[in-house]
């Protein structure tokens, strides 16, 4: 009796391929793409940023407003802070009585705006839906000055192409495209649900806009700077989509 001879037939190779494909894919799961693919995915994300800004963003379309009864109970509306994650306490300006927003960079008229000065400007109040990158939504009312109003006072130069918003929340900052920043609903907010901002919500002043994801709305503002080159952002530098528009 002779042993059956095992030979790798084409059919065997074919079956091996069928088994190896899914096995490789399963092994790849939970994977960020590694040192080769991950940077490429980030670079690819810039194409989606471009589509988001140049194709899908309408400078004049307004996000829907809701009645105040639709507000999410404040307790159910979370706010994230880098300082809070590190220390368990919300960030506070070094000297609250000296706090002011610095408006500068590529502008003809640099400004230093105190909260009183901002509150004296024409205000916008709206009740809108907040979209977090994590997938949750919440509705809240926000009051503040349109970024475009402040920009008109500062008179950005022709070469200004981006806005950078800095904060006193550790190293948190964001870069914005000008189209989104000059949108009528993009405001420097000082009140949430008719009350002055709490430390949790970004006091004394924060960026708010219903056309961006939450992580684009810099809280605890210190400066608003017009730049020629594209500023990154705290999360954006770590891989989150830069444009972050909804």
């Amino acid at each position, binding site marked *: 009796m002779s042993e059956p001879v095992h030979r790798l037939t084409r059919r065997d190779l074919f079956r091996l391929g069928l088994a190896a494909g899914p096995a490789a894919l399963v092994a790849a799961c939970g994977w960020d793409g590694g040192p080769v693919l*991950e940077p490429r995915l980030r670079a690819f*994300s810039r194409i989606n940023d471009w589509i988001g800004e140049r194709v899908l963003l*309408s400078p004049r379309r307004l996000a829907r407003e809701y009645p105040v009864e639709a507000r999410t109970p404040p307790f159910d509306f979370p706010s994230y802070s880098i300082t809070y994650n590190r220390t368990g306490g919300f960030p506070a300006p070094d000297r609250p009585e000296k706090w002011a927003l610095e408006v500068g960079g590529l502008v003809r008229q640099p400004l230093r705006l105190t909260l009183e000065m901002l509150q004296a400007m024409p205000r916008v109040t709206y009740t809108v839906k907040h979209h977090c990158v994590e*997938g949750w939504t919440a509705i809240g009312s926000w009051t503040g000055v349109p970024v475009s109003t402040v920009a008109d006072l500062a008179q950005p130069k022709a070469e200004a192409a981006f806005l950078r918003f800095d904060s006193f929340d550790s190293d948190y900052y964001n870069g914005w495209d000008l189209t989104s920043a000059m949108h009528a609903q993009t405001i420097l907010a000082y009140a949430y649900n008719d009350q002055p901002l709490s430390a949790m919500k970004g006091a004394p002043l924060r960026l708010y806009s219903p056309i961006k994801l939450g992580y684009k709305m810099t809280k605890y503002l210190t400066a608003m700077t017009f730049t020629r080159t594209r500023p990154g952002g705290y999360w954006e530098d770590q891989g989150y989509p830069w444009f972050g528009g909804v």
Partner: protein
Amino acid sequence: MESAAVPRPPVKRHHGIVRVAHWLNAIVLLGMIASGLQIYGAFSHFGIRGGTFPLPNPLDGKPIPQWGRLGGWLAGGLNWHFALAWPFVITGLVYLLFLGLTGEWRALLFRPRDLGPAVRMQLYYLKLRKEHPPQGKHNALQKGAYTFIVLLGALSALTGFAIYKPVQLSWLASLFGGYELARYWHFVTVWIFVGFTLLHVALVFLVDPASLRAMITGWYRGRFPSHE
């Protein structure tokens, strides 16, 4: 039906474009689902915060196992998802364009007149009918399945766009009942895709393994005389 005693000559069944689209889509869809589950894991609930949501989610609050995720963390999942969305949509459009231009859609689109044949085919599969009903390239149940999966693909892409830009594409989001519901339907399409694929693969191996080779080489040498 009886197996052919005389070997049937091989028939060319799938054009190269269809085969490339099929396998590319299989890989891309797997990546879309895994990166989508990574994203879902960042907030594994539906409905607005502080509100109630009317539809069931057996996976509410459940962590997604590591082997089912792609991207490592939320940002990685997003970048995979929004990059793979391109080949997913482009492959789908190229496939549909091919079907439209070549007239191949006639063999695949389920129409009202396929209802009767679909019932007869189901009876045959349930062994309540002896004769294999006559068919063209695909039987009526297959047409139903292949029409359904294209619609499901379109639904997954459209709900995806609705939750990607719920303000700029607010008309699309409201078509699905708003952002929160669109996100739910997007999630539901995942599980229909998973169920469809498991059934699809099971049927290939149980009923007509030769169709697998046909989807790779283009040539069908199986036992179903499914050609005019």
